[in-house]
C-alpha cells in the first residue's frame, strides 16, 4: 500500500515520512485483553508442561522460547494492515498448498503422520498447522467478495477451496489436523450465513455416511478408538488404556486437585502423551475441577474477546476471518478436552497454547495477531463507506 492509498482510505492526510514513523511507533497495535488472555494461557501451559514432563527444564525452556517467538510473530502480524492481508490471502493460500504438496513429496514422518517439512536452513515445521489459519482466511476472502448470503455455487467453490488442503492433510495421515482444516472452512461458511437447512442436510449426510466410513474406510486404530470410546474396558491395557488412565487422573484430582507436581498419574507416567494430547488430564489432576474451570474460563474469555472483535469488525472479510479463527481455536480446545474426559473418541489433537508444540503455537499466535490487526482496523477512523 502506498502513501496515497493509505491517505485515501484512512482519511488521514499524507504525512511526512519522519512524522509517519513516529506516529506508527506511538500507535503499535495491541489488543491488551487478547494479549493478557493469551499470555495467561501460555503461562498456565508452561506450568502444566513443567509438571507433565516431570521437571524437564529443557522442554519447558524450548516451549517458552516458542511462545516468545509466537508473541513476536503475533505483534508483527498485528501491525499489518487488513487490506494488505486481504489481498495477500489467496497467494498465501496457494503458497500453503505448495508447501502441503512439498510435504507429500519430501515430508518427514513423526508419530505416524507424515506432516513435517525439514527444509535446509529452516527449523522443521508442519505446513498443515498453518492451514488452520490460511483456510478460514481464504474462505473469508472468497466469500466477502461476493453477496451474502452465499449462493449454492459459491458454497461449492468454497467447499473446493477447503477440500483441496483437507485432502492433502488427510494424505499426510494427520486426520486431527485435517478435521480442523475442514471445520475452519465450515465455521466461515456458517458465519457467512450459509443456509441452515443446507448445514442440517450436510450434517445428516455425514451421520449417514459415518457407518459406511467405519465399515469400509476406517483403519484398524481408528476403529479401536471408536470401540474404546464406547467401552474403554474391552481392552483396558491396549486401546482403552489412554482414556481409562486419563479419566482416573481427572477423577482422582477431585475439586481442588492433588497440587502442583503432585499428580500421581502424571508423575508416575500413567497418563499417556501427557506433554501433548492429554495435558488437560494433568491439569485436571493437579489443579482439580477448580483448575480445569479456570482454564476453560480463560478459553471462554478468549472466545468471547475474539467474537467481540469479529462482531465489531469493519467489513465482512474481517468479521469472517476473526470469527473463523476464534471458532476453530475454540473447536480445537473443545475437541481436545472432550476427548480427554471421554466425551469424544480419541482424536490426535493438542490443546492449543498448552500442549507442547512448535508450528501449532506459532500458527495460533499468527491467528491472534490477525485478530489484533482486525481489532486495530475497526478501532481506527471509520471507513468512508460505512
Amino acid at each position, binding site marked *: 500500500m502506498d502513501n496515497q492509498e493509505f491517505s485515501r482510505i484512512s482519511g488521514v492526510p499524507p504525512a511526512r515520512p519522519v512524522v509517519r514513523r513516529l506516529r506508527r511507533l506511538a500507535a503499535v497495535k495491541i489488543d491488551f485483553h487478547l494479549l493478557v488472555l493469551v499470555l495467561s494461557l501460555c503461562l498456565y501451559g508452561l506450568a502444566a508442561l513443567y509438571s507433565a514432563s516431570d521437571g524437564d527444564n529443557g522442554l519447558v525452556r524450548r516451549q517458552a522460547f516458542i511462545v516468545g517467538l509466537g508473541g513476536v510473530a503475533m505483534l508483527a502480524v498485528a501491525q499489518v494492515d487488513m487490506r494488505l492481508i486481504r489481498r495477500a490471502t489467496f497467494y498465501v493460500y496457494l503458497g500453503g498448498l505448495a508447501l502441503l504438496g512439498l510435504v507429500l513429496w519430501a515430508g518427514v514422518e513423526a508419530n505416524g503422520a507424515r506432516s513435517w517439512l525439514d527444509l535446509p536452513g529452516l527449523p522443521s515445521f508442519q505446513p498443515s498447522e498453518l492451514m488452520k489459519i490460511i483456510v478460514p482466511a481464504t474462505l473469508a476472502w472468497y466469500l466477502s467478495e461476493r453477496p451474502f448470503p452465499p449462493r449454492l455455487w459459491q458454497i461449492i467453490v468454497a467447499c473446493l477451496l477447503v477440500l483441496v488442503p483437507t485432502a492433502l492433510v488427510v494424505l499426510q495421515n494427520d486426520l486431527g489436523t485435517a478435521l480442523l482444516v475442514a471445520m475452519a472452512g465450515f465455521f466461515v461458511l456458517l458465519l457467512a*450465513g450459509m443456509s441452515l437447512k443446507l448445514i442440517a442436510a450436510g450434517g445428516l449426510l455425514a451421520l449417514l455416511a459415518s457407518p459406511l466410513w467405519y465399515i469400509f474406510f476406517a483403519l484398524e486404530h481408528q476403529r479401536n478408538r471408536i470401540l474404546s470410546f464406547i467401552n474403554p474396558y474391552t481392552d483396558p491395557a491396549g486401546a482403552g488404556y489412554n482414556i481409562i488412565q486419563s479419566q482416573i487422573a481427572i477423577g*482422582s484430582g477431585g475439586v481442588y486437585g492433588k497440587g502442583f507436581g503432585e499428580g500421581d498419574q502424571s508423575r508416575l507416567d500413567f497418563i499417556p502423551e501427557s506433554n501433548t494430547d492429554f495435558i488437560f488430564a494433568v491439569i485436571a489432576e493437579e489443579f482439580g475441577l477448580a483448575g480445569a474451570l479456570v482454564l476453560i474460563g480463560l478459553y471462554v474469555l478468549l472466545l468471547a474477546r475474539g467474537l467481540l472483535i469479529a462482531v465489531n469488525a469493519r467489513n465482512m472479510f474481517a468479521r469472517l476471518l476473526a470469527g473463523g479463527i476464534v471458532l476453530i481455536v475454540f473447536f480445537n480446545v473443545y475437541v481436545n478436552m472432550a476427548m480427554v474426559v471421554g466425551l469424544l473418541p480419541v482424536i490426535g489433537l493438542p490443546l492449543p497454547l498448552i500442549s507442547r508444540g512448535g508450528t501449532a503455537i506459532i500458527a495460533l499466535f499468527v491467528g491472534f495477531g490477525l485478530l489484533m490487526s482486525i481489532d486495530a482496523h475497526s478501532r481506527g477512523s471509520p471507513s468512508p463507506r460505512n
Partner: protein
Amino acid sequence: MTGRWHFRDHQAERRLFNRRVVLASSVVFLLLAALVGRLVNLQVVQYEYFSARSDGNRLHVQYVPPQRGVIYDRSGTLLADNLPVYNLTIVPEEVNDLAATLDYLSDLVELGENDIETFENQLRRGRVPYSSVPLRYVLTEDEKYRVAVNSHRLPGVSMEPQLMRHYPFDSLTAHSVGYVSHINQQELDALDETEFENYGGTTHIGKTGVERTYEHLLHGRVGYETVEKNNRGRVMRVLESTEAVAGNDIALHLDHRLQMATEAALGNYRGAVVAIEPETGGILAMVSKPGFDPNLFVTGISGRDYGVLVTDEVNTPLFDRSVNPYPPGSTVKPFLGLAGLHLGFVDYEFTIDDPGYFQLPGVSYRWNNYTMRTAIGGGHGITDLRRAIYQSSDTFFYDLGHRMGIDAMHDFMSLFGFGGNLALDIGYARTGVLPSRDWKMETRGEPWFPGDTINSSIGQGYMWATPLQLATAATLIANEGRMVRPRMLKSVNGEPYLFEEEFAAADVVLEDADYWRYMRDAMTMVVHRPYSNIFRDYGTAYEAIARADPDMTYQIAGKTGTAQVVGISQNIRSSAEIRVSEQNKDHALFIAFAPAGHPLIDPRIALAVFVENGEHGSTVAGPVAKRITDAWLLDILQLDLTVEPEPEPAPLRGPLPREPSEVAALDG
C-alpha cells in the same frame, strides 16, 4: 472489485453475521455445559472411585523376603551363606510384547535356552499378578550397565538385587547341607495358609539335607512394604514397611576340615562315610561320593547339566549314599556277638570248630565261610567269639544266628537303630531292612525260613543298613550303650540346641557291662592283632591299618565287612574265577571308633565307611577309616594319644590268648 460494494446491504450482512455468532455461541454454551457436567461427574461425583483407582495404579503392597539364615560348621566356617547379586526380572503384565522384549534382552545379556525355559515355566505356574518373574540370575557388571542404559526401552523389565544362596565348598556339602532351589507348586500347595503368606516373597526353599530339615529355622519371617510404582512397574519410593525378620543362623556339628579329609580319604571311589562324635552324637562328617555342585540348583540348573547328573547310572551323583541302605555284610557281627553274650547264646568260653562251612541239621546245603573262596580254603578251626570277630568267621555267626533265631536277632539289633532311624534331624534317611517274620510276610508274602536267618547272621540276605545306621550303631559300642542319637544341628544363633526327643532315647543295657569292653577289645584286634605263627589269627584289618602305619599312636576298634552285591555260587571257590563287572563287585565296609581302650581319652569319633564296589572291607574301606580318624584325632583335635607306660596294644583280659599248642592244633 470495489465497485460491487455499493450494491451490498451492509446492515443486513452484519445482522446475519451477528445472528450466526449468537447461534455459534449458543452451541458453544451447550457444549461447555456438557464438558463441565462431565468434569463434575468425574471429579466430584466419582471422585472416591477414581481416587481409589489412582491409588490402586501406583500403590502396591509387596513382600520383603527375609534373609535366609546362614549355616556354619562347628568351627564357625560358613557352609552356606548369601551373596548379593542382581537378577534380571520381568513383570509380564507391564510388558507390551514379551517375545520382542526377550529378543531384545538377548542382545543385552546372555540368555540361555534354559533361562527362557525356566522363565516360561514360572509364567505358567500360578503367581501373584504384577509380581516380577526372574529371567536371568547373577548379572555381570557389563550386563547391568547395558540393561540400565536401555531401561527406557524395556518397560516391565528391572534389575532386582537379591541375596543368593551360595555354598562355598561346592560339592563337599552337596548331600549333607543340601541346597535350596526354586519353590515348586507342590511345595507351595503343601504350605498351610500362614506359611503360604510367609513365603509370599520367597523364591527358594530348602530341597535337601539340612536346608530342607531346618527350613523352618532358616527361612525367617516375611516383611511387607507399600511401594509406589510407575506405569512401567518401577518402584519409585517406599511409603511404609514392615521389616522382614531374618532367619536363624545355625551351626552344625559338621567339621569342614574333616569333611574335606573324608572326601579326600575316599579318593576316586564311589561311597559314603558318616562320622559321629560319640559324646554328643554330633555328625562330624557326612560324605557321599561322587557329589555335585549344589550352587547349580540355586540359580536353576540347566536341563543339560541336570541330564548329566541324572543319566550317570554308575556314579549317580545326586544319590546320597550315606543315607541309603546296602547289605552291611560282616559289620553286623559285633552287634550279633553282643546279642549272643547278652542273651546267653555264647559266653567268653564258648567255641565252635569251624570247618569252613555251616549246615543246618538234616540239610545238605552248605553255607560257606568266605575262607572257602580263598586259594587255601578251609575254615578257622576252633573259634571263640573274639576270634570270630577279628577273623570275621562266618561259620561262627551262622551257628550263633541259627541258635538265636530271627526274632531275638531282630529285637536286639533294633536297639542299635537297624531297621529304624535314630537320627534326630535326618528324617530323609532311609531305614534299610532289619528283617523279621512279620516283615517278610508283609513284603514278600512268604514265611520266614531258617536259611533266611543264616544269611542275616552275616549281614546278607534281606538285611540292609545305611552308612548312617552303621555309624550310629558303632557309636553305641563306643559309648558302651549310652544312647546319644545322631544329629546335625549344634546350635541356633549361637545357643546350643536341645532336642526334645533326646530324653526319650533309651540306653542299650546289657546283662553284663563288661560285654562292651569285651567287644571293644575284639574290634581293636580286628585292626591291631598282628600276624603270628598261628594260622588265621590276625586281625582282618591289621595288614591295611596297623601294619601299614607302625608309628600309630592310638588304637582303632573296627570291623571289616565285604558285602556281596550279587549271589555267587557256593561252588565257585575263588572270586577271581568269575568275571565280575565293575558294578557287581562286592561293597567294602568298615565300622570303627577311636581312640579305643585309651586309659584317659574316651572315643572321639565313630564312623562307618562304605565303598561301593570296593571289593575288600579290610584293604579298601579300612585305610579310608584310618585316614579319617588320623585327620580328626591328630590333625584337627591335635590330641596327644601316646600312651607312655604301655608300649603294647591294650591289655587283653578274658580266656584268650589260648595256649599256643591248642591254637596250633587248629591249623590242620
